[in-house]
């Protein structure tokens, strides 16, 4: 048969993000222009390694320490050295959970909510394999943790309590201050960790507001570069590092500093904090408009997080009768990007442990989809998105 090569394009056509209705900002969001600008010199003439004697290193070190100071101020940390730069939010969670337990030694335990991100749960599972006691706390039907349950679960042996500020799937907010108080009431020496990766862009996440001893953040959720995160570590909390090496970050996280990443992340943090009130208003309006319009067009819709205690950017919905796996594909075909559960390496969707912990059946969970808005959205974008999504659902019914 003759070969018609021209009909088959073999070169990939770049990244098509123009024209896509992107409703997956909870997975990752658009990189801010000021972030690119801030990072540029560190991918160019300011290439130095901060760990050195000479002036090239000094310039780099100044940039890192300046960023550290600014990050500390944004979080309300008492001292800049309470900020540990890591290779991402997952790594920060690993350090926050394993660090105190391994430092405390045999018998030291973990108490965490059953809806934590896998970065926390898998670290806890790893510690369990090493023989440390792990207690996972159940959540109610809306995904919330009861502070009393925390107090009841914490013992003298508990090294760390981990409850996320907001859930990455449903967006539900946890009562962090009450949880921290309950934990410390049960055992004053326990370290309280909160994964604030999803919450930081929308909520006031500071040391005082959260009452936490350990706060994990991820750069890319804020419009910064991927592969960069930080862990706030209250002075006095002992941590065994998880990344060993040259002793950077006061021994807590070794490895040559990702100078450009650090500068970029802190620029993203600054922009996020400055924009927070407006983000809540703007993005909240987009999300609310989306949900309201979609509910008008698609009967039977259910929201999975309580309206009064969730992030402004999340719309985690159950669409009865519409399997999420097929819906996401049809949405992609219509140029809409959304998410469900979590993707395994092969790309297939796995049923969410968060929804299971909330008591949802597998069949119901298989009908849940997460739509999430971002810093680039305007209020009117919500209604427009809802109309496209409704059309796709209609075509499937």
């Amino acid at each position, binding site marked *: *048969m003759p*070969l*018609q*090569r021209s*009909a*088959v*394009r*073999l*070169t*990939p*056509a770049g990244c098509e993000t123009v024209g896509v209705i992107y409703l997956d900002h909870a997975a990752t969001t658009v990189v801010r222009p000021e972030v690119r600008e801030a990072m540029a010199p560190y991918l160019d003439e300011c290439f130095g390694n901060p760990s050195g004697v000479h002036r090239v290193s000094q310039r780099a070190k100044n940039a890192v320490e300046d960023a550290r100071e600014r990050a500390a101020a944004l979080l309300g940390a008492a001292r800049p050295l309470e900020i540990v730069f890591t290779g991402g939010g997952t790594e920060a969670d690993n350090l926050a959970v394993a660090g105190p337990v391994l430092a405390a030694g045999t018998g030291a335990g973990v108490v965490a909510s059953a809806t934590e991100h896998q970065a926390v749960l898998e670290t806890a599972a790893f510690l369990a394999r090493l023989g440390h006691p792990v207690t996972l706390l159940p959540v109610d039907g809306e995904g919330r943790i009861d502070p009393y349950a925390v107090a009841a679960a914490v013992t003298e042996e508990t090294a760390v309590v981990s409850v996320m500020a907001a859930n990455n799937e449903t967006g539900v907010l946890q009562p962090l201050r009450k949880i921290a108080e309950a934990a410390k009431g049960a055992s004053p020496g326990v370290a309280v960790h909160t994964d604030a990766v999803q919450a930081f862009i929308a909520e006031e996440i500071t040391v005082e507001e959260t009452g936490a001893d350990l706060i994990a953040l991820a750069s890319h959720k804020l419009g910064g570069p991927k592969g960069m995160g930080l862990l706030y570590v209250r002075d006095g909390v002992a941590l065994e590092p998880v990344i060993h090496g040259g002793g950077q970050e006061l021994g807590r996280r070794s490895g040559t500093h990702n100078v450009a990443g650090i500068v970029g992340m802190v620029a993203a943090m600054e922009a996020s904090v400055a924009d927070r009130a407006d983000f809540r208003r703007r993005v909240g309006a987009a999300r609310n408009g989306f949900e309201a319009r979609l509910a008008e067009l698609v009967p039977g819709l259910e929201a999975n997080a309580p309206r009064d205690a969730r992030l402004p950017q999340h719309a985690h919905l159950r669409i009865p009768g519409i399997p999420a*796996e*097929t819906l996401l*594909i*049809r949405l*992609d*075909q219509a140029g809409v990007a959304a998410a469900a559960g979590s993707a*395994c*390496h*092969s*790309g*297939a*969707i*796995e049923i969410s442990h968060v929804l299971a912990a909330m008591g949802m059946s597998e069949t119901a969970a298989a009908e849940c989809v997460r739509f999430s808005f971002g810093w680039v959205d305007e209020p009117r974008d919500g209604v427009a998105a809802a109309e496209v999504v409704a059309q796709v659902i209609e075509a*499937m019914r």
Partner: protein
Amino acid sequence: MRALVAMSGGVDSSVAAAIMLEQGHDVVGVTLKQWEGADGAMPTAGCCTVGDAEDARRVAAQLDVPYYVLDYVDEFRTGVVERFGAAYMAGLTPNPCIECNRTVRFSALLERTTQLGCDVLVTGHHARVDRDRGRFRLRTAVDGTKDQSYVLHMLGQGELARIRLPVGEMTKAEVRERAAVLGLRTAAKPDSQDLCFVGHGDYRDFLRSHFPAAARPGNIVATDGTVVGSHRGTVDFTIGQRKGLGVAVGEPRYVVDIEPATATVVIGRREDLQVVGCDLEQVSFVAGAPPRDSAVTVKVRYRARPVPADLQRSGGSWRLTFPTPQLAVAPGQAAVFYEGDEVLGGGVITATHPVP
């Protein structure tokens, strides 16, 4: 038209996707996640591994078509793997690829095709679908050594109307050549040989680990029931097997029956292996109705040569009679009827009738 192409990561499905594009259709590539290990991860050996999904994804990227992975783990476990184990333990010789086509690929996935916004389902199977005077035909592949029409025999008019098999018109060499010219990374990839869910080792290791009763030691008996030896697990035997019996009686002996429930292997002489007919169940006809002529040719195994047979109704089902006795006809296998290169239909072999 928009075509849903089932991409296994092999060269056949890669080229099938490319041909649909050449013909001017839109393509959506999918890989089926069918099996996961105990930890939920996709297997890393055998067919349909993470590596294979990666290959499929890259070919889709090369062809610039959307690509998704669909979760069929539950359907596959109940419809294929559990059925395979249960059939084996009942003393049958199952063909899980046929059950997969019957319950997953060409039913569940075919139904999904419309839901996924597509018009036809495309696979890289070596077989041909065409239209002849208003009805759809399923025919053997141009490349007789690669023909897979046997495992597609259960398809009917409704299915064939919505299926395309683009590589059936090509020899394997032509498929590889086309892939190489297109620069597809799977051009030189060797064909997967094993059952897709078996992974490391072979189906016997799989049965041993998932159905330990199949690995119980037991007796080897003659057709009259006399114990003539012992074995270390019925998994090591198949109907018609001659070697590895560990029994020396001067003339060749063959496995004529296997009973995993009692861990018994029955051996006999060559004549004991011969059957003059067999009963069938789950019989289907591609045309939707039985052929007018009861004389057909039949394959009783995937690799068997087609032999003449007579197809007759029997009770509520069908039976085949072989004018020339056939060896090693194993219940659980499919019997597929042909007329020349056209598949007429097929069914599952239940009981066999020995030479009277």
